C-alpha cells in the first residue's frame, strides 16, 4: 500500500469527518448566547454561584457582584420556583452520595500510596544504593508501581467519582444503578491491588502503561464495564433534551477507555514494532481520550457553576470536543520519533500533535472569556483556584506537547527527563489539580458536612503549587541539558547523567512538598468523613446532615 496515500487519506478523512460533525451539531458557530450553555443552571440561578467548600466569609465575597454580572433580581415567585428546582437537585445529589463517596475514598488512598512510591523512586535516582536489597523495592519495579497506582488508581477513581456525581445533575434525574458501580469499583480495586502485587513480585507484561498481566486486567475490564452501566441507565432516563458538553466528554471517555484497554491487552496478537506503535497508541490515548476529557468535563461544569455564569461560547466547547476526538487519538506515534517504525506513521502523529492546537486553543479561549470580569472570584473560592489553574496547565501542557512532537525538538527531548516533566504537567498540573478542585466542591454535598478546617485547603493548594513548580521547572531544565549532552558526540555519555544530578535532587524536594500537600488533603478528607472539626453553622449546604450517606448505609 502506498504510504503517502494512507497518510493523505487518513488526514483528509479526519478533516472531512470533523467538519461534517461540527456542521451537524451547530449551524450557528461561535454564537455567544447558546441556550445549551445555561442547561446546568436552573431558571434564575445565573449570577448565583455555588461553592460548597467556601466559608461564610468567602461566600460573602463570592456573592459580591462583579461589573460584568448582569443578572436580574428575582421576584418572590421566581425565588420559590428556584427553590423547587434546587430541591430536585438535592435529590439528584442524594442518589450519588454513597457511590461518589466510595470512589473518592479509594482515590485518596491511591493518591497517598502512589505519591510515596513516586517519591521513593525519585530519591532512588540520585541515591542508587538506597533500599536495594529487596527486589520489589528496586527502581524498575517501584517506579512502575507508582505509575500504575496513579494511572489506574488515583486518576480513574477520582474521575469516576466525580463523573458519577455530575451525571445526575447534568441529566436532571437521580442516578440509576449505583449498586453496579459500587460493585465495579470493588472489582477494579481488587484488580489493581493484584496488579500492583504482580509488578512488585516481578510478574508483568513488559510494556509501559500495560504492565499489569492481562489475566488480572480482566478484573479491571469487568469492573470498568459495571462502572459504565449507571451511565447508560441514567442517560436513558434523562429529563433534559440536550446533553451538556460535559456529558459529551464523559460519555465518550467512558466508552473509549474500555476499547483502548481491551485492544491493548489482547494477548498473542501484537508483535515487535507493531506492538510498540500499539503501546504508544494506548499510552497516549489513556491520557488524551480518558483523563483529559474527564477533567475537561469537570472544568466545563464546575467553573461556570462556581462563578454563576454560563460558558462564554458553547459552540467553541463542542468544536473543542470534536477536534480533540479526531486529533488526539492519532498522536501516540510521536513517542517513537527516530525509532524503527514506518516513517509515515511518525509523520502522521507529528501532524496530528500539532493539530491539537485547535482543541486546546478553543478550550483556553473559552475558559478565559468565561472568567473575564470574574477573576476576582478566585480570591474567595478555594475550589475555583484549583480548577482555573488546572485549566491553564491543560493549555500549557498541550502546547508544550505539540512543540515537543516536532522532529527537531523531539531529537533533544526524547529519551530524557524532559518528557517525564511534560507527562507530569499533563497528569498532575492539569488533571490532578482539576480533580482536587472537583473533590473540594463535591465532598460537602456528598457528606452533607462542611470541610472542617478551611485553612487546610489553602495549605494544600500552596504546597502542591510550590512543590510542583520546583518539580517541573527543575526536571525540565535537567532533561533538556541531558538531551543536549547526549547529542554532543564529543562528550562521553556519563556527562549526560552527571548533569542531571542537581535537578533529580530538586525533583525529590518538589515531590516531597507535593506529597506533604497530599497528606494534608488526605488528613482533611479523613477528618471530614469522621465528622471532626468545629461544626460550622453558616450552612453552604443544600440538604441536612440527616440524609448522610453513612447513616443511610447503616440504616437500610
Amino acid at each position, binding site marked *: *500500500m502506498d504510504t503517502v496515500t*494512507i497518510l493523505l487519506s*487518513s488526514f483528509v*478523512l479526519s478533516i472531512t*469527518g470533523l467538519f461534517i*460533525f461540527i456542521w451537524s451539531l451547530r449551524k450557528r458557530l461561535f454564537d455567544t448566547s447558546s441556550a445549551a450553555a445555561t442547561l446546568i443552571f436552573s431558571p434564575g440561578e445565573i449570577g448565583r454561584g455555588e461553592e460548597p467548600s467556601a466559608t461564610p466569609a468567602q461566600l460573602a465575597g463570592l456573592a459580591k457582584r462583579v461589573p460584568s454580572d448582569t443578572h436580574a433580581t428575582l421576584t418572590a415567585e421566581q425565588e420559590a420556583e428556584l427553590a423547587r428546582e434546587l430541591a430536585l437537585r438535592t435529590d439528584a445529589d442524594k442518589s450519588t452520595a454513597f457511590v461518589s463517596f466510595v470512589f473518592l475514598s479509594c482515590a485518596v488512598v491511591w493518591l497517598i500510596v502512589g505519591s510515596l512510591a513516586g517519591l521513593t523512586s525519585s530519591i*532512588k*535516582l540520585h541515591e*542508587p544504593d538506597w533500599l536495594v536489597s529487596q527486589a520489589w523495592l*528496586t*527502581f*524498575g*519495579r517501584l*517506579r*512502575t508501581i507508582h505509575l500504575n497506582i496513579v494511572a489506574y488508581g488515583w486518576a480513574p477513581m477520582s474521575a469516576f467519582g466525580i463523573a458519577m456525581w455530575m451525571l445526575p445533575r447534568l441529566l436532571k434525574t437521580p442516578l440509576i444503578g449505583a449498586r453496579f458501580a459500587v460493585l465495579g469499583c470493588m472489582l477494579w480495586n481488587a484488580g489493581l491491588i493484584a496488579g500492583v502485587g504482580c509488578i512488585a513480585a*516481578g*510478574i*508483568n507484561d*513488559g*510494556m*509501559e502503561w500495560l504492565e499489569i498481566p492481562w489475566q488480572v486486567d480482566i478484573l479491571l475490564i469487568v469492573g470498568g464495564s459495571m462502572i459504565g452501566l449507571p451511565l447508560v441507565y441514567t442517560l436513558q432516563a434523562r429529563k433534559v433534551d440536550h*446533553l451538556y458538553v460535559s456529558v*459529551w466528554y464523559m460519555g*465518550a471517555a467512558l466508552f*473509549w477507555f474500555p*476499547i483502548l484497554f481491551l485492544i491493548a491487552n489482547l494477548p498473542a496478537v501484537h*508483535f*515487535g*514494532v507493531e*506492538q*510498540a*506503535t500499539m*503501546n504508544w*497508541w494506548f499510552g497516549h*490515548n489513556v491520557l488524551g*481520550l480518558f483523563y483529559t476529557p474527564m477533567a475537561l468535563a469537570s472544568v466545563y461544569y464546575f467553573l461556570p457553576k462556581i462563578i454563576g455564569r454560563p460558558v462564554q461560547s458553547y459552540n467553541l466547547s463542542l468544536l473543542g470536543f*470534536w477536534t480533540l*476526538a479526531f486529533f488526539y487519538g492519532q498522536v*501516540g506515534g510521536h*513517542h517513537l520519533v*527516530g*525509532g*524503527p*517504525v*514506518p*516513517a*509515515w506513521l511518525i509523520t502522521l*502523529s507529528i501532524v496530528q500533535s500539532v493539530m491539537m492546537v485547535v482543541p486546546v486553543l478553543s478550550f483556553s479561549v473559552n475558559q478565559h472569556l468565561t472568567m473575564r470580569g470574574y477573576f476576582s472570584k478566585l480570591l474567595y473560592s478555594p475550589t475555583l483556584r484549583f480548577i482555573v489553574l488546572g485549566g491553564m496547565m491543560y493549555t500549557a501542557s498541550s502546547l508544550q506537547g505539540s512543540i515537543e512532537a516536532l522532529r527537531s525538538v523531539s*531529537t533533544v527531548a526524547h*529519551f*530524557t527527563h524532559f*518528557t517525564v516533566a511534560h507527562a507530569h504537567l499533563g497528569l498532575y498540573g492539569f488533571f490532578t489539580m482539576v480533580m482536587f478542585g472537583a473533590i473540594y466542591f463535591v465532598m460537602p454535598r456528598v457528606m452533607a458536612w462542611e470541610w472542617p478546617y478551611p485553612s487546610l485547603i489553602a495549605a494544600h493548594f500552596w504546597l502542591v503549587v510550590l512543590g510542583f513548580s520546583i518539580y517541573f521547572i527543575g526536571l525540565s531544565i535537567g532533561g533538556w541539558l541531558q538531551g543536549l549532552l*547526549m547529542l*554532543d*558526540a564529543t562528550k562521553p*555519555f*556519563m556527562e*549526560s*547523567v552527571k548533569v542531571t544530578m542537581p535537578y*533529580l535532587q530538586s525533583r525529590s524536594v518538589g515531590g516531597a512538598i507535593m506529597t506533604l500537600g497530599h497528606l494534608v488533603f488526605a488528613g482533611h478528607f479523613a477528618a471530614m468523613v469522621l465528622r471532626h472539626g468545629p461544626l460550622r453553622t453558616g450552612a453552604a449546604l443544600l440538604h441536612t446532615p440527616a440524609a448522610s450517606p453513612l447513616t443511610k448505609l447503616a440504616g437500610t
Partner: protein
Amino acid sequence: MHDELKLLSGAMVTLALATAGLVVLPFIQLKAVPPPPGLKAYTSAQLRGREVYIKNGCIYCHSQQPRDKAQAPDDTRGWGRASVAADYFYDKPHLLGTMRTGPDLFNIGARQPSADWHLGHLYQPRAYTPGSIMPSYPYLFEAKEKADPGDRVVTLPPGFKPVGKIVVATQEVLDLVTYLQGLDHTYPVLEAVEPKKK
C-alpha cells in the same frame, strides 16, 4: 436518543481512525517482514534472561533502538546502526524503551562481551562506572563464606567485595547476562523496509 447516537457514533469513528492508523496499518505492513539473515532466535537461557530484564524494569532507563546517524550520534557512541523493524522479529514483548537514563543496550553484547564485567557491574555499577546512577542489584547475588561446587564466583574490583565473603551469582542474573551478551545486532541489513520520503 438523537444526541447520544451522534455522540457515540462520532466517538467510535474517531477512535477507529486512530486505531487504523496506529495499530491496524502497522500490523498489516509489518506482519510479512522476515527476520534478517544475521538475526538468531533467542535461546531458552536468553529468553529467561529477557524475563529477568522485564521483571526488574530495565526498560525504564535503557532503550533498545539506536537512532539514525543523521539524527543523533548514537553510532559514534558505539550503540550501533539505526535499528529496523526486522531486527525485532523475535521480540515479544517489544523492549524499545523511552528513556536513556542509561545508554542504549541494543548492541551491548557486541560492546561489552565479558560476563565478568556484566556480573560485577550488576552487583555494583559504581565499581566500574564512577558516578553511575544505576541501582545495584545485590538481591540477584549471594554473599557466601566459600564457594560450593558449581558456583559462579563474581570477580569484583578491590574495595567492592563484602568483607570476608565471596559473591556468587544466582541463576537469574546468569540468565540476564546471557541475554545481554546476546544483544548484538551488528549484522548488516538492507536499508529500512519503509523507503524514507523527504
